[in-house]
């Protein structure tokens, strides 16, 4: 089924038009992705009118390039400023920013670039070569699988709590509680809305991420010595090419991250914002004596960065093969396909193989290009870490407010973001886990709807229902393993009790 003809479309993908579209998509994706509040779907939606008058393959290459680069661009601000540009890069703030604080910003950027580019490439090749069979797998995910995947994601809370499991779980519970706000899907009843219209659609993920991470970070930087900078360095050594020894050191973390991303991408609606946490928690559970998780462990960063770009290619599989968009970005790309008269589905592969395979090759090449363009952009951004805290702190606060408003056009969301910011600031001070709140908020609705849908489709007998479904059982086993590895005694941690008691972010 796949052979020389697939390879032949590679040359279409690098025609001058397609190449320029790719470059435009990559640059716009990187910039918009790096700005908290402006998300990849927004960048893609804004590019759709631009793409109207292009040939279908060129237009779609523009959009998928923007998608891949947007997910990666979000990592710059996450690593360098602890202000994640997208929801898929929130987990990278933990190890990435700690590395920046220890003067290792460049190392963090180059590992992130390697993990993202190679992750995107692998994901792109899986998309190119295995899309039709994997689409069948994505159909197997039903209510019980969604519910269990959400539970698996929630087990990550115990791992990312760093030291205080109780405080981590409390943070997760707060997130879960906040996720119940809004209109109940099953009855249409407004829950905890206090007659406020904004709360009817629930608490937005975006104001929460910007608040908990970026705004809180702006507050933290605004206190203390105004003239010191984030990295404590005076200049940046600039070496973007990863060393073989570095890659060798994180090889298994990369592979686990990529694998997590590829699998989570195939599941419609799971995506990067969940994959990164599952990959990260996996790393922490496999921690060895001497690893510095929570304090700038490069293995953790390799896994989160590998997973969020590992998602990108495979998340397009259900969209191309079945016409089922796995997320908002894929939905926008689906809309663009249709506007260009291309109907996704098995017919698309039969009738317009030149378009499909050209787009897929374009996606693969865009991932390589992304690495090169990133060298310039990341370098420019990395200089921000040399700026005095007194300038960077307020700047982050201003950008958080502008970004939230630009993203929602809703002042209430700006207030919500600020409330999360103040919450996040004090949580870090008292060793609670902002990541736990975020996980609860993201996974709460998936778990709740999955559970209620499962109760309906199983006619009220969920347990026997789960036991008849192989994928459900597999996820159940993963959950049990995850819990075991999270709570098993770790002898080496006893010696580090003093370090652990300190809030990890205040240790310098």
């Amino acid at each position, binding site marked *: 089924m796949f052979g020389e003809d697939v390879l032949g479309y590679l040359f279409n993908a690098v025609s001058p038009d397609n190449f320029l579209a790719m470059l435009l998509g990559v640059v716009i994706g990187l910039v918009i992705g790096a700005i908290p509040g402006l*998300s990849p*779907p*927004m960048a*893609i*939606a804004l590019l*759709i*009118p631009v793409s*109207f008058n292009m040939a279908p393959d060129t237009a779609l290459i523009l959009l998928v390039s923007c998608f891949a680069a947007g997910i990666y661009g979000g990592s710059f601000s996450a690593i360098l400023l602890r202000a994640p540009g997208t929801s898929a890069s929130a987990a990278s703030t933990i190890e990435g920013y700690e590395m920046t604080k220890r003067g290792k910003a460049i190392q963090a950027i180059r590992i992130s670039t390697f993990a993202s580019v190679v992750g995107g490439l692998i994901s792109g090749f899986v998309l190119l070569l295995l899309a039709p069979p994997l689409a069948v797998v*994505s*159909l*197997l*995910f*039903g*209510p019980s699988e969604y519910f269990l995947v959400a539970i698996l994601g929630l087990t990550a809370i115990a791992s990312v709590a760093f030291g205080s499991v109780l405080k981590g779980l409390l943070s997760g519970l707060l997130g879960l509680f906040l996720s119940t706000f809004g*209109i109940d*899907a*099953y*009855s*249409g*009843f*407004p829950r905890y809305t206090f*007659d406020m*219209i*904004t*709360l*009817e*659609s629930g608490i*937005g993920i975006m104001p929460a991420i910007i608040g908990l991470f970026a705004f809180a970070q702006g507050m933290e930087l605004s206190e203390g010595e105004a003239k010191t900078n984030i990295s404590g360095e005076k200049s940046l050594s600039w070496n973007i090419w990863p060393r073989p020894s570095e890659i060798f050191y994180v090889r298994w973390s990369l592979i686990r991250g990529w694998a997590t991303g590829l699998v989570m991408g195939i599941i*419609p*609606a799971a995506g990067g914002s969940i994959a990164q946490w599952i990959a990260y928690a996996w790393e922490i559970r496999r921690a060895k004596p001497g690893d510095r998780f929570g304090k700038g462990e490069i293995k953790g960063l390799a896994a989160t960065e590998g997973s969020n770009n590992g998602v990108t290619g495979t998340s397009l599989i*259900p969209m191309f093969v*079945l*016409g*089922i*968009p*796995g997320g*908002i*970005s894929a*939905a*926008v790309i689906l*809309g663009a396909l*249709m*506007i*260009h*008269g291309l*109907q*996704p*589905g*098995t*017919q698309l592969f039969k009738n317009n193989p030149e378009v499909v395979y050209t787009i897929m090759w374009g996606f693969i090449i865009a991932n390589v290009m992304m690495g090169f363009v990133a060298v310039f952009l990341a370098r420019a951004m990395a200089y921000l870490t040399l700026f005095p805290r007194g300038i960077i702190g307020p700047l982050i606060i201003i950008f958080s407010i502008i970004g939230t408003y630009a993203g*929602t*056009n*809703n002042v*209430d*969301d700006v207030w919500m973001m600020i409330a999360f910011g103040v919450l996040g600031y004090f949580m870090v001070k008292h060793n609670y886990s902002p990541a736990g709140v975020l996980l609860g908020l993201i996974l709460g609705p998936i778990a709740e*709807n999955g559970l209620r*849908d499962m109760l*309906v*489709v199983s*006619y009220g007998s969920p347990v026997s229902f789960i036991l008849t479904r192989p994928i459900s059982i597999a996820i159940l086993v993963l959950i049990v393993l995850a819990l075991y590895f999270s709570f098993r005694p770790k002898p080496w941690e006893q010696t580090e009790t003093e370090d652990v008691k300190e809030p990890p972010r205040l240790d310098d």
Partner: protein
Amino acid sequence: MSKAKSMGGKGRGGFGRRKFLAGAGAVAGAATFTTAARVAKAAKFPSGPVQLVVPFGTGGGSDRAMRLFAPYLAKELGQPVNVINIAGGGGWKAWSQMAQWDPEKDDHIIGTINLPHVLSLLDPRMKRTETLESFNFIAWHSLDPCIWAVREGDERFQSLRAFIDHAKANPNRIVMSTTAVGSDDHMGIAFAEKFVDGFKVQKVYANNDGKKIQEVIGGHTDAVGGNVGYYVPYMLDRKLRAICVLSADRSPNLPTVPTFEEVTGKKNISFAGRTFALANGIAAEKQAVYLNAIKTAMANPEYALKEAANRNPLVFREGDELWKALRESEKLVNAVKFWELEQ
């Protein structure tokens, strides 16, 4: 202009006659200038960029349709049209603002209002103060009738009649995927449950069509409530098969699929619609400018072709015809009272 006036005032008090005259001249000049500007403004409306408010987030169906429409509307208005997403509260963040728009200040902004979503104002639990009259609807834009579909190859449901009989024979064993309570898809199912004796199904709710389609194609649910435009592609791809259309007449896209009424005798009509609204009390000539622009832009064959590819059926309505359709929707929602059904 106020600056020029205060200059003049100063001149009279402290700087003598010449300065006063100069100041007065400035006032007069400014006055002439603004009058000229006013005349020009009246001659050319709209005088600047126009905002097109989408009550849902970037990337949704409404957003896509309006981003597609904006360039054509801009061409007719002679001004740029910027799509603004004001998301939240299932559309109500934007709609509650629209009801309060000022006819003078908010004369460069067009709102889009979705049906039947806006009729959630009838749900007493939501405590809305708005009614349909709170909005200055000016034109209907698109109307996509609801359909019910099953998996291609599902032998149990060869027709709507077979589907209903099966549901009656197996109470609470048929599961349908639908969009949230109060949506067009839910309204169609709720109507059937209320008015077709003995028909009762279980429902699984989604906030997007991707989830619904995955559920029914993947065999997790038995049937799905959706819209003609969005679902026809899946039928062409032989993944889904429509068993009925919830409209007065058969859909030209699905000529062999019967209406719900043909099979059951019950007039079950449900659709997803989009309309345009302006500020209440906006000057009649301004409203006419917008209405003409919308009408001409929608008639642009190039635009119609793009919307056909996007499978969004355009339906232009204005004036009495528009309000008649709004009233019918309102009547239907009041008859179904979906908020009493799902407890």
